[in-house]
């Protein structure tokens, strides 16, 4: 069993190697077979291992496999060691399973592309890196995966590299996540200095003994790791790259920028929960960042017109929920939301991709419309996803996970009513913009002619994901309704249980409020965009609303802010010093000697008399020394 672990990342890696080395000479069918096949095989192995894991839990609740010693010096060693525990299992399952579905979808979606092999090679490499990230036994290997997914994200955002905007988006994504990564690296250094190890199980056992709760060192470590997570998971203030990252192909957005990579921050915090628990400041910061992000991004999503940007902002917002859950100490709830979110957001992106492709690469939702009857499969699956995103009560997976988070935001140990209030406002906004999206895209008049309709390879993954978006929530019910908690039982083999604080209102009230708010959001969307659009027209006429809309549309102006504060000064700094100010130093020396040369060279004028006079003066001088010296 342990030996199978290495196969999971190795298969996509093999796919990457084959495709990148020989891909240009292979026919598309074989490329598709290798690309999708390797990930599917990895998914099958994962399911097999997962079954084993559930049936007969291994000792220590983890499978481990040591591949080889990576590096070792005096007191530091890191191995290429894999580890599969409950948390990893959830992530690996999502990565391989959703990944496989997205790969299958891509075989059809990308069929006309020139660089078919490059696409699948990059996707396979991504899956491999992401698997290494979550399966790493030590933080260095995790950092390898962490940077690896960053690279693949860069490659795939800039997949259509001939458009400069795409390349710029890819660069932006890399730069901003790199800032987070650097902070995380510093966190690792500090962690190593304190504990002398970067092995995850050792950290888990040693940290509580080594650190006082709330000590400044552990706070710094946790905050630095959090910064890494913020970069990767597009949390405030490092969120600006994700909307631009939508320049990549839709399957990429689905896999990397919705389901897996952007949740790496969630994984990191969950993985390092011991460290975070030791630092109340970091926990509060996590929760606060999650809360602020979910609200800010939700507001931005309301104003977008590009279908993928709406989904991108909603992704940021949903990850904000996960951070909020982790921050208040509701570990399993956060992971559960990741679990359901992976399904429905992947579904939404894939469905959006299908819509975009059918409408000749039209991204603007206001030029879509009336697709309900013409693309029924896409419509119904999109509806399932949208329902989950809006967290429609009882019938969608999103409800079960989000409801938990809302409840814990108040009642968990670190929760407080303010967080709950923000979260519930976010829920309202989510429901609203989801409804807006649905109505504008699928109802109303058709505005763009439909081209090629999606084929089987695209619709079947959509349907599978749609089913999962509904049923995935049923494995974990609220305690007061049905006593079923398969998911939290599983992840709590690794993560601590969620502790509640004393004296909070009964859970049912929260559920009712949440359900009511969701329905209110849906209703608001229905009224504004379907039933009574004149209200909207009135708003558009008022300058205050319009400027608010523009503010939201620009993502609260973060891009402009960073542009003025960082980008322009940086460009200025590099531009004024292009020719290296230190060069003046040695140019100065050279010029000085040249000037001196010019001064003195008049003495070398070729005149014999002049030279003899020089000699004469020399003799006079020497004799003068004899006389007076």
């Amino acid at each position, binding site marked *: 069993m342990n030996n199978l672990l290495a196969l999971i990342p190795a298969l996509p890696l093999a796919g990457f190697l084959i495709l990148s080395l020989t891909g240009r000479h292979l026919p598309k069918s074989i490329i598709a077979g290798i690309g999708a096949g390797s990930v599917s095989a990895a998914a099958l192995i994962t399911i097999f291992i997962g079954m084993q894991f559930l049936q007969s839990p291994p000792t220590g609740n983890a499978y481990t496999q040591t591949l080889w010693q990576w590096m070792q010096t005096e007191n530091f060693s890191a191995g290429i060691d894999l580890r599969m525990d409950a948390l990893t299992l959830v992530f690996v399952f999502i990565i391989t399973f959703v990944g496989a579905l997205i790969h299958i979808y891509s075989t059809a979606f990308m069929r006309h592309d020139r660089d078919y092999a490059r696409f699948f090679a990059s996707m396979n490499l991504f899956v491999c890196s992401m698997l290494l990230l979550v399966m790493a036994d030590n933080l260095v290997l995790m950092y390898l995966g962490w940077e690896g997914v960053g690279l693949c994200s860069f490659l795939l955002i800039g997949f259509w590299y001939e458009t400069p905007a795409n390349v710029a988006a890819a660069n932006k994504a890399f730069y901003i996540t790199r800032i987070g990564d650097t902070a995380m690296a510093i966190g690792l250094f500090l962690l190593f200095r304190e504990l002398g190890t970067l092995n995850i199980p050792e950290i888990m056992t040693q940290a509580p003994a080594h650190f006082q709760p709330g000590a400044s060192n552990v706070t710094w470590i946790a905050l630095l790791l959090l910064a890494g997570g913020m970069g990767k998971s597009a949390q405030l203030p490092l969120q600006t790259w994700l909307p631009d990252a939508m320049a990549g192909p839709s399957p990429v957005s689905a896999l990397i920028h919705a389901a897996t990579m952007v949740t790496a921050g969630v994984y990191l915090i969950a993985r390092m929960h011991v460290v975070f628990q030791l630092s109340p400041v970091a926990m509060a910061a996590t929760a606060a960042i999650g809360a602020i992000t979910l609200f800010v991004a939700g507001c931005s999503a309301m104003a977008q017109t590009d279908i993928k940007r709406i989904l991108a902002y909603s992704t940021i917002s949903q990850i904000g929920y996960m951070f909020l859950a982790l921050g208040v100490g509701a570990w399993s709830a956060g992971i559960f939301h990741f679990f359901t979110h992976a399904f429905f957001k992947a579904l939404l992106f894939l469905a959006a991709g299908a819509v975009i492709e059918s409408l000749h690469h039209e991204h603007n939702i206001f030029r879509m419309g009336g697709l309900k009857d013409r693309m029924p499969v896409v419509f119904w699956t999109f509806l399932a996803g949208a329902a989950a995103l809006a967290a429609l009560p009882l019938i969608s997976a999103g409800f079960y996970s989000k409801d938990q988070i809302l409840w814990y935001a108040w009642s968990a140990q670190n929760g407080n009513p303010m967080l709950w209030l923000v979260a519930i406002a976010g829920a309202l906004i989510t429901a609203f913009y989801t409804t807006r999206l649905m109505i504008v895209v699928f109802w109303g008049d058709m505005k763009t002619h439909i081209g090629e309709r999606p084929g089987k390879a695209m619709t079947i993954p959509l349907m599978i994901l749609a089913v999962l978006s509904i049923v995935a929530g049923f494995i974990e019910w609220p305690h007061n309704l049905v006593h079923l908690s398969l998911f939290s039982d599983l992840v709590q083999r690794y993560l601590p249980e969620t502790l509640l604080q004393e004296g909070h209102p009964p859970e049912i009230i929260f559920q009712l409020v949440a359900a009511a708010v969701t329905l209110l959001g849906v209703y608001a969307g229905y009224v504004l965009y379907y039933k009574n659009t004149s209200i909207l027209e009135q708003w558009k006429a008022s300058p205050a609303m319009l400027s608010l809309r523009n503010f939201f549309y620009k993502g609260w102006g973060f891009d402009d802010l960073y542009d003025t504060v960082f980008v322009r000064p940086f460009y200025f700094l590099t531009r004024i010093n292009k020719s290296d100010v230190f060069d003046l130093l040695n140019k100065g020396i050279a010029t000085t000697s040249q000037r001196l040369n010019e001064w003195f060279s008049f003495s070398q004028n070729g005149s014999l*008399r002049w030279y003899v*006079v020089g000699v*004469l*003066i020399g*003799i*006079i001088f020497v*004799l*003068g020394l*004899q*006389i007076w010296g």
Partner: protein
Amino acid sequence: MNVLFYLSSAIAIAATIMVITRYKPIHALLYLVVSFMAVAMIFLSLGAPFVAVLEIILYAGAIIVLMIFVVMMLNLGSETAQQEKEWLLPKVWLGPSILSLVLLGEIIYLLLRSGTGNASFIFIDSKKVALSLYGEYIIAVELTGFLLMAGIVGAAHIGKHKKKHLHRFLQEEEVSTKIEVRSTKPEDEKQTKPVAYKP
């Protein structure tokens, strides 16, 4: 003897002054002969008859004759004299002369300061000189032979009629310019090209 010395010294200095102030080369050379002969007299007065004779034979004889030959060959006559005349103005000779006088003053001052009074006169005959020359100075004599040899060969070589040669490094540089793209301006190359002089 002192009378002889002072007299010939005066003649030598006067003749030398005449040498350096003549405009015509041939006049200067004739005064030079006088100067050399006066110096030979000084040698004689110092008790060195051998070198006195050599002075007359070699300096006043051979070297002066050589010079006169050259002056004749190059046909340096009134034209040169005119040129020198135009040249030798006070502003040309005043500065160097003053400097030289300062030097002379210094030398004389140093000589007088370290003066040790009169010394007795010792006659040194040619036998003594010969013994010393072929005894302890034999290596130097050999080397002087080489020097004279080199002088003869050098004079013969330099005096030949010949075309200007270009050094091989410069030739190679020219080859390389054909192969590579030069950064320097093409005007530079023209300067390095050989300009054969035709008499």
